[in-house]
Every structure is written in structure tokens, then in C-alpha cells.
């Protein structure tokens, strides 16, 4: 029947050949719009330049480092000693202490941070939340040099008081790791809380509607639904811990040490970079080139974590309408 109408009308309406678009519809060239768009694109492109800069600089100097006949890639990843000035080029001691501090930090930050997030999003009244959240965010805003200072002047003495001076060295990875965990905690709780609050209320209502308690709803329904955001928070926390510099530079010690004992001093990758670049080493020495090689490793690791984070959170993301 529709066909009918159309055939009917088509034959009656004259279709003009639209050769030229009339003035009131014709396209205008708007130069300012084009220029602005160009500028804006450039702004976006700066980030690409930054990445290229990072990769290029780190890569270039790392090449110099690996071009050194004393350095072999195999040795770099397997040797357990790191003393570039005397030809010991094993990243392991730096890597293990980075691992150790990160691990300790995560043991603190992840469970406590997630618990706090659950409390804020599922239990706290909106009033309590509006007070508690900013306070936690202050904790996140404190510069890391302050945390480093806190680790050295407060946490270490406390640890030595607990475990005994003879057991805990003055510089130790435990203190640095714990304080790093404290520093990262608000990041975990804040991001996880965002993820939890983003879970639609309808899901909670569905759970309560089945006669579940608050705990069951929170842990069995809301947390799994927010998993993608929580995983992202966790991984970002890990990469923050790996990249954190000042706390370990101040409190973890300043000599590479291949150990898994958290009471001992051990220098992390970032700590090493900070110390060497703090001025004690000349350009074009193996030490100097080595900070770029370590920087490259650091960059690749955090990049990998970023990508992993996005992959995982995409995998666990649920789309609610």
C-alpha cells in the first residue's frame, strides 16, 4: 500500500535537476575552523612525540650500553651482581628488590584498599563518604618524598623496635614497601570505589530482592560486576609501585643486593636511576648508560602492565544498559 502512495506522488512532484546548490545551502570554507582543528590535532600529537622521545632516547642510550663489549644480554638478565663500574651487569638484584618492594606494597594496598572501597561504596552513608573520600584523597596527594621521609624516620624505627635492631637493617625493603603500600592504598580504594559505584543500583536491588545480606550483595554481586575496574586499579597500583622512586631512594638502601630478605637493604631499579643521575656519574660512562637501559626495562614493564590492564578490564567489562 505504501508503494501505492509513493508511486502516486512521485509522478506528480517534479524533481528539479539539483545542478547547483542554492546559496543558502552551499558549503562555506571556514578557515578559522580548519586552523583550529589543525592546532588541536597537534596538541594530541604531542603525546605521540613524547612517546617517540622516550623510546628513542632510552633506546639510543641503551644501545650504547649493550654495545659495550663487556655487556651481554644474557648476562644482563641472569647475572646476580650489578656493579657497572667494575663490569658486573646483572639486572637481577635490582629487579628482585623492585619485585620485593612491590610485593610488600601490594600486600598492604590491595586488600586494605579494596576493603576501604567496599566500605565506602556499600556501607558508608553518603555523608560519611563525602567526608572520608576527600581525606583518603589527601593521603594520595602527599608527595612521595614525604613518604620516603616517613619510612626512614618513622616506619623503620618501628620495625626495628618490633623485630629487633640486629635483624632489621637501617635501610630495608620492608619499610619502603610498607610505606609504598600506604601511599598506593588511596589510589586503589579510590579507583575501586569508582568502579563499585558504577555498578548499577539495579543489580544491588536484584540481589537484595532475593533476600541477600549486605555482605553477600557486596562481595558476590557488586565486586564481581566491578571486576574490570578493580583489576585496572590493581594493575595501575602495581605499575605505580614499580615506578615509585623517592620512597625507595630514601628508605630502601643504596647498593644493589641480591636478596629476598625484606629486612635487608637493597637498591631497586628506580632507586639506582635516581642515585646515579643525582650527579655522581659522568656522561658516557657505563654507569650513565646503564640508567637508560634500566629505564628502558622499567618503561617496557609498565607499558606491558598498562596493556595487560586494558586487556583484562576489557575482558571483564560487563555492559549494562
Amino acid at each position, binding site marked *: 500500500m505504501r508503494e501505492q502512495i509513493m508511486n502516486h506522488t512521485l509522478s506528480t512532484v517534479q524533481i528539479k535537476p539539483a545542478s547547483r546548490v542554492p546559496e543558502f545551502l552551499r558549503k562555506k570554507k571556514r578557515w578559522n575552523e580548519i586552523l583550529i582543528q589543525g592546532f588541536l590535532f597537534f596538541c594530541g600529537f604531542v603525546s605521540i612525540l613524547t612517546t617517540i622521545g622516550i623510546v628513542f632516547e632510552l633506546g639510543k642510550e641503551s644501545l650504547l650500553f649493550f654495545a659495550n663489549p663487556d655487556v651481554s644480554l644474557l648476562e644482563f638478565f641472569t647475572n646476580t651482581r650489578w656493579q657497572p663500574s667494575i663490569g658486573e651487569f646483572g639486572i637481577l638484584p635490582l629487579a628482585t628488590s623492585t619485585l620485593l618492594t612491590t610485593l610488600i606494597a601490594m600486600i598492604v594496598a590491595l586488600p586494605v584498599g579494596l576493603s576501604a572501597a567496599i566500605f565506602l561504596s556499600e556501607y558508608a552513608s553518603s555523608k560519611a563518604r563525602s567526608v572520608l573520600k576527600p581525606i583518603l584523597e589527601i593521603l594520595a596527594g602527599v608527595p612521595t618524598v614525604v613518604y620516603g621521609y616517613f619510612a626512614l624516620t618513622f616506619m623503620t624505627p618501628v620495625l626495628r623496635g618490633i623485630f629487633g635492631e640486629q635483624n632489621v637493617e637501617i635501610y630495608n625493603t620492608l619499610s619502603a614497601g610498607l610505606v609504598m603500600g600506604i601511599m598506593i592504598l588511596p589510589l586503589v580504594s579510590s579507583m575501586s570505589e569508582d568502579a563499585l559505584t558504577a555498578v548499577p543500583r539495579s543489580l544491588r536491588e536484584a540481589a537484595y530482592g532475593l533476600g541477600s545480606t549486605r555482605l553477600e550483595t557486596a562481595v558476590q554481586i557488586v565486586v564481581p560486576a566491578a571486576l574490570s575496574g578493580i583489576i585496572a586499579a590493581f594493575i595501575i597500583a602495581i605499575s605505580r609501585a614499580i615506578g615509585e622512586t623517592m620512597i625507595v631512594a630514601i628508605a630502601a638502601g643504596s647498593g644493589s643486593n641480591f636478596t629476598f630478605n625484606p629486612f635487608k637493604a637493597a637498591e631497586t631499579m628506580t632507586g639506582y636511576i635516581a642515585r646515579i*643521575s643525582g650527579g655522581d656519574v659522568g656522561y658516557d660512562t657505563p654507569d650513565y648508560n646503564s640508567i637508560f637501559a634500566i629505564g628502558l626495562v622499567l618503561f617496557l614493564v609498565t607499558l606491558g602492565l598498562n596493556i595487560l590492564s586494558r586487556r583484562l578490564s576489557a575482558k571483564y567489562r560487563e555492559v549494562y544498559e
Partner: protein
Amino acid sequence: MNEYTDLAGESNTNLQKRHRDSKIWRTIFYASTAAAIIILAILILSIVNQAFGLVVLKNTVEPEKISSVPLEQLSSQDLIKILKKNLTSNRYKTIDRDMPFTARSQADLVDLVIAEVVKPTVVDSYHLDVSILHRNEIMARAAEKYPNGHVEFHSWLNPEFITRSMSSTPELAGVRTAIFGSLWIILITVLVAFPTGVGAAIYLEEYAASNRINKIIQTNIDNLAGVPSIIYGILGLAIFVRGLGYFTGGGFLGSGETGGRTILSAGLTMALLILPILIINAQEAIRAVPRSLREASYGLGATKWQTIWHHVLPSALPGILTGTILAISRAIGETAPLILVGASSFINRDPSSVFSRFTALPIQIYNWTTRPQDEFRNIAAAAILVLLVLLLSLNAFAILMRNRFTRRIS
């Protein structure tokens, strides 16, 4: 009917257990939150604890050795004579140039003699907790160890501390140069990062078609946000300090400076560092502008830029500013990149241009924690308080600004 008489579920042991679990975990969650907040309190208390406390002062020259009568009773002429006798001629001239001796009151001169000649110096210091709890022991010990010393309560955080420049003597050191250094760096950072960041955010949110290059840009920005700050330090060192040292050091202006360890390099490095954070925040703010507003504008025949400039940006501004201020707070506290870019450990002059060498508050704190004398630990704590106050006021400012703008819009 019977089963409904028990809506309270008292006979249902399973339900009771569930409620019990619920309570236990509630306590755990609550405790976690509380723990975080208690730690914050401990952190701040432990810093306050070191920024105040008793000190033992000892005079470099005992007043009795300068004059037989107490200084307060001397005439201005006598005091000036004492100064002339005890100071180097250059020092004497310098003070006179600041303000002629003859123009100073007698009380001022007494202070001057004390500061320049008697020079009481801190020989021992105690933390606040010890000062309060063990005051008597401290007094006794001080009396025994420093017979000529005297004990007084000292706030390491004081007005002079903020207005003085650096010194190798802790009680004479201040953070003025560092504050100015930080402010200059932030200025450069903001001038560079704000327009670029907002521009990039507008581009990505409003212009970018979903093609390959734009996807790469977006992914890249997300990735950069996770790159450790020390890597930016390495980048800054390699590019701004060394590669472009001729420009960032002002060499191209004929300043004669070589090397790029300047405010400009530090500011640019920080700008790159906060750029991704700023862009992501700004994107969120722009995204939060309701589509209806854009549609209203386009529906009237507005062009893209008119829509963005007149409607999207004003509405997104509070969010963008909040994000910017948060990014700035991050930049103010960053230490590692500045170490790499080459902050100075000792510098006596406030920076005067972007080509000045610099130090910054966190660098100062870091340096002081590495000095041997205990008193440097005290002023490091005082400097931390200054930094925290600065950060808190910035955040408060962000909140105020956000409220103001939100009010204006609604």
C-alpha cells in the same frame, strides 16, 4: 501460617550465621578505612612531631665577654662600636647599607648584636613528644652537657623559615628560594600543559573520527599516564637538559649559560609528565557535558568550534580546572624527575627568569633528609609542612573554583 510467624528469622540458624558474617566483615571493611585514615594522622603527626620541640642553644660569644653591662643597658653608640669591633668591615658595610646603623633603634641594635656577634646556635634538639614527656630530663642533661647553653621551645616552622633563603646552618636555612623555584616551575608547567592538554582533549572528544591515528593517540595517552615519573626525568635530562641545552639554558639569547639545568627544562619536563593526566581529566569533563547542550547548539546552525567555544568549554571548565589543579598538585610534589633534570642542592638567589637554575621544595626536603645534622631533619619536617599546606590550599582552591563555576552555570 506457622512459617510466617518467624519473620525475625530467630529459629533460622543459617540466617543468623549470614547476619553474623555480614557484621564481621562490615567491621573489617570499616577497620580498613579507619586504618587508612589513622595512618594519615600518624604521618602528619610524625612530621609535626619533628617540626617543633625543645632546643639547646649555645652562644658563640658570651655577651659578658663583649661588655660588662648587659647589652640591653648599652647605648646605641656602644652597640655600634661593638658591632664595628666584632664584624668584618664588609659585613659591617653590608648591614649598614641595608639600613644605616644610625637609623636603627637601640632595641634593634641589641637584636643585631645578638644575631651577629653573640650568635646563639642550636647544639641539640628534641622532638615534640620527647620535649613534652621528658622536659625535666632534657633540662638536666642540657645543664650538664652545655653549662652555658639554655633550653627553649622552638618552632622550626616560623615566618623567617619561609622568608629566608638557603643556608648550610640549619637554624638559618629557609625555603624561600625553593618556594619560588617550585612556583616558577609550576608556572611553566601550567602555561605549557594547560593549553596543550585541553586542546588534545577537545581534539579527541570532539573532532577525532575513530580512525587509526586517533586510536593510537588515545591509547598512547592512556599508556603515558602509567609511565613512571622517573622515566620522564630521563627524557627531560636527555632532551631538554642535554639535547636542547642551548635553548633551555638561554644560550641562544647570549646569556652565556651553558647546560640546560634550568627552570625551563624542569617546567617542560613536568608539563610532559602531567599532560596525560590532564588530558584524561579534561576528556572526562568534556564528555560529561550533556549531549543535549551540543545538540541545542548545532540545532541552531552553530559550527563545531562555536559550539565548543561557547557551550562545551564553559560547561566543562570546572571539571577541567579541577583536573588541572590535581595535576599541578602532583607536579608540585614530584621529586625524582627534578633530581634527574638537575635541581641544585645549594642556591642563594631566587630565580629571576625561566633560564635560572633552580631548586624546589621537594628537592630541598630530599636534600635536607640527607644531611648529617639532626637539625636538618627538623627543617625538612618544617618544609614538608609548608609543602602540605601549599598542596591543601591548592586543593581547597580547586574545590572552591568548582563550586563557583557550578553555581554560575545552574
